[in-house]
C-alpha cells in the first residue's frame, strides 16, 4: 500500500512538472512547481521503517522550498503590481537559486539528502531539478541578476566536487554531486533549452543507475563502499565512476565537450575555465571513489554473477556509459 501511494504521488508530481513546461506565464510555472513539490512531500516521507530522521529531512526540504517559492511569488507580484523589474528579478533569482540548491544557497541539500531514502535523492537531486532549471527565466532584462545566476552556477560546479571529497556519508556525497550537476545544467541553459533537455536526460539516466546500485547495497558510508556495494554491480559502478571522472570516451566527457564547444563559439572564457576546473577536481574525486569501491577485502561474486535482472541492469549501465557518449556526439 505504501509503495502504491509513493508511486501515485510521484506520478502526480511528474504530471505537474510536465505541465509546468508548457505554461507560458511565470505565475502558472510557479503554481505547477509548487504543486509538484507538494506532491513530493508524501513520497519523501514514505519509509518502510519510520524513524524520526525522515521528519528532519523532509521538514528541511519543505521549509527551504516554501521559502524559495515565497521569494518567487513575491517577485512575480512586485513585477505585476509596480513593475519593479530589478527588485522582482532579484527576488526570483534568489528564490530559484534556493530551490535549486546552488552555491551559496546549497546549505539545505546535504542536510536533507542525508535523511532521504534513495528514491527521494534521485527525484529531488536529479528529477525535480531538471524541470526547475528548464523553466527558470534567464533574467535577460536585468543583467545583474543574470550574472549573479550564472556565477552561482559556476560556483556550484567548482564547489560541488570539493565538497564531495569531504563527504563521509554516501548520501552527502550524492548531495554535493547533485549541486555540481545543477550548476552544469544551469550553465547549459544559457546555451539553449536543447542542451538542458539533452543533458537532463543523460544525467537522470546516469543518476538512476548510480542511485539504484547504491540502494541495492544499502550503502551508508563512503569508506565502506567497497564492502557494501554488491559485487555484481561493481563493473557498472566503475563505468559510472569513470564517466563522471570525465575520461574519454565515456558519456560525461562528451557532454562536457559539447558545452566547451558551445562556450568556445560564444567566447565564454569563464564557462570554459569553470568546466575544466570542475572536471579536474571531479577526476580526482571519482578516482578516489573508484579505489574505495574496488578495494574490498571481502571475497564476493564478480561480473555477471547476479540474477538475470541484475546482470541486465549492470550491462545496461556499462553500455550506457561506454557507448552513449559516441551516440550523443553523433546525434548532436
Amino acid at each position, binding site marked *: 500500500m505504501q509503495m502504491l501511494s509513493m508511486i501515485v504521488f510521484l506520478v502526480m508530481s511528474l504530471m505537474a512538472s510536465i505541465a509546468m513546461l508548457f505554461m507560458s506565464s511565470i505565475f502558472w510555472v510557479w503554481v505547477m512547481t509548487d504543486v509538484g513539490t507538494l506532491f513530493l512531500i508524501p513520497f519523501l516521507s514514505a519509509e518502510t521503517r519510520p524513524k524520526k530522521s525522515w521528519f528532519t529531512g523532509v521538514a528541511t526540504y519543505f521549509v527551504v522550498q516554501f521559502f524559495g517559492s515565497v521569494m518567487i511569488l513575491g517577485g512575480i507580484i512586485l513585477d505585476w503590481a509596480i513593475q519593479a523589474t530589478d527588485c522582482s528579478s532579484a527576488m526570483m533569482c534568489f528564490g530559484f537559486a534556493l530551490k535549486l540548491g546552488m552555491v551559496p544557497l546549497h546549505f539545505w541539500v546535504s542536510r536533507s539528502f542525508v535523511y532521504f531514502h534513495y528514491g527521494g535523492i534521485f527525484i529531488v537531486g536529479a528529477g525535480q531539478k531538471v524541470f526547475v532549471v528548464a523553466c527558470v527565466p534567464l533574467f535577460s532584462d536585468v543583467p545583474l541578476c543574470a550574472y549573479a545566476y550564472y556565477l552561482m552556477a559556476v560556483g556550484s560546479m567548482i564547489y560541488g566536487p570539493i565538497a564531495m571529497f569531504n563527504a563521509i556519508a554516501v548520501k552527502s556525497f550524492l548531495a554535493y554531486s547533485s549541486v555540481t550537476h545543477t550548476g552544469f545544467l544551469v550553465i547549459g541553459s544559457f546555451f539553449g533549452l536543447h542542451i538542458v533537455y539533452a543533458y537532463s536526460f543523460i544525467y537522470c539516466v546516469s543518476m538512476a543507475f548510480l542511485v539504484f546500485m547504491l540502494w541495492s547495497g544499502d550503502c551508508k558510508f563512503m569508506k565502506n563502499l567497497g564492502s557494501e556495494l554488491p559485487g555484481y554491480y561493481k563493473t557498472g559502478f566503475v563505468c559510472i565512476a569513470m564517466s563522471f571522472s570525465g*575520461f574519454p*570516451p565515456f558519456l560525461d566527457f562528451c557532454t562536457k565537450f559539447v558545452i566547451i564547444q558551445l562556450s*568556445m*563559439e560564444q567566447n565564454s572564457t569563464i564557462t570554459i575555465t569553470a568546466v575544466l576546473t570542475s572536471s579536474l577536481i571531479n*577526476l*580526482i574525486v571519482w578516482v578516489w571513489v*573508484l579505489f574505495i569501491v574496488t578495494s574490498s577485502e571481502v571475497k564476493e561474486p564478480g561480473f555477471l554473477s547476479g540474477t538475470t535482472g541484475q546482470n541486465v541492469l549492470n550491462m545496461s549501465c556499462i553500455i550506457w556509459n561506454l557507448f552513449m557518449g559516441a551516440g550523443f556526439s553523433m546525434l548532436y
Partner: protein
Amino acid sequence: MGLLILMALNCFCVMFLNKKDQTVAVVNCFGMWSAFSLMYWGGSGVSRESLSELFCVDIYSSSMISLSLWICGISILVSSCMINLRGVFNTYLVLVTLLCFLLVQCFMVNTLAMFYVLFESTLIPLASIIGIWGGQIERVPSIQYMAAYTVGGSFPLLLIFITMEVHAGSSFMWFISMKTSLNWMFWGGCFLGFLIKLPAFPFHSWLPKAHVQAPVGGSVILAGILLKLGGYGITRMMMLFSYTLESFGILVMSFSIVGSVYGAFMCLRQSDIKKLIAYSSVSHMAFSIMGLFSCTEVGMVGAYIMLVSHGFISPGLFVLSGINSEMVHSRKIKVMSDGVRAAPSLGFFWLVMIMANLGVPPCPVIISEVLSVVCVIALYPWVFVLLLMYFILSGAYSFSLYCQLTRTKKKIKMKVFFNEVTLKDMSALYFLFYPLAEVLFKWDLWAMM
C-alpha cells in the same frame, strides 16, 4: 586498419582457449602483430599500406606502433613470471591488450580530436593496472597525481582542437598550416600536455610516484611506450602548425637541460631502484625534448633514437629490478645485492643494462645524445658545461648503482626467496636486447630524405 582487424580477430580467437594457454597465446599474438606492423615501415612519407579514411601512418608513427606492440608483449611475458602479480591474471591480459589497442590507434589516427580521446583513454587501463596490482595504499594518490597532471595538462590541447573544429570544421592532422606568428600561450597550450607526459622538468613529479606503485608489467609499459606518446604528440603538433624555433621552444630546451642534470643528480640520491630508474627516464627524455624543439633534422633523428632506445632499455631495467626485488622482497638497492650474489648471472645483466642506459657504445643512446648535444650547442655553446655535468653525474650514478648491486661484503645469512634465475625469467630481457641492435644499425631511419 588491417592491423587493428587482425588484433581484434586474434583476441576473439584467444578468448576460446584454456586460461593457462591464453598467456602464451597472447604473447605470441603480440609477436605476430609486431611483425605485421613492420609492413608500415616505408621510410619517409606516408605508408601506402596504412592509408584509409581514418588512419594514416608514416615512419614516426609506425616506429611507435611497433614499439607499442613489442613492449606490451614484453609486459605480459614478464608479468607471467612474477609471483607477486596477485589476482586474476586474465584481467591483466585484457587490460594490457586493451591498452595496446588504444595505443596503436592513437599512433594511427588522422584527426587531433580522436588523438586526444585516445591519448586520454590510455590512462584508464594503466590506472587500473596500478590500482589492482599496485603494492601499497599510496597507489591511490599516485594515480590521482598521474591523472590530474595528464588530464589537467592536456586541457589546453582540448581547447585547441575544439577551436579547430569550430572555426576550421576539422582537426585533420595532416593539413600543414602556413607559418604564422602565434604567441607563446598557444604553443604552451599545444605542447603542455605532451611535455607533462614525457615527462619534462618541472612537470615530472608524477612519474616516480607512478613507477614505485606500479607492478613490473605496468612500469614496463609506462616507461616503454606511454611516455613516448608525449614525444609523438609534440612531433605531430609541430608538423600541423609548422612550428619553428621560437622563444617558447628555447625556454623548454633550457628547462630540459636543467632537468637532465636534475634527474641525474636525483638518481645519485636514490635508495629505491624504481625511483632511480624513473629519474633516469626524466634525464633521458630531456634529450628527446632538446632534439625535438631544436627544429633540426639532426635533432629529430636524435630524439627518435632516444625515444625508441629508451623504450627498450628502461623496461629492461624494470624487468631486472622486478626479478631482483622479487628475490629479496625489497626495492632497496643495498638489499638487492643479496639477490645478485645469490644469482651471479644477474650481475652480468645489470652491467649490460646499466651500460646501455648510460649510453656506452655500441648502444644507440650515445648516438642520440651526441646528436642532441650538437643541436643544443649550435644554439648556445656554453650549454656544454651543463651537459658535461649531466654526463659526469650519469656516469656517477650508474657506477654507484652497479657497485651497490654487486658489492661483495660478506653477510652471515643471505635473505633470498629463491636463488636461481631461469631462462623463462630472463626471456623478456633477451627480447629487449635484440631491437636495440636493430636501432643501432638503422639509426638514420627517421632522417627525412
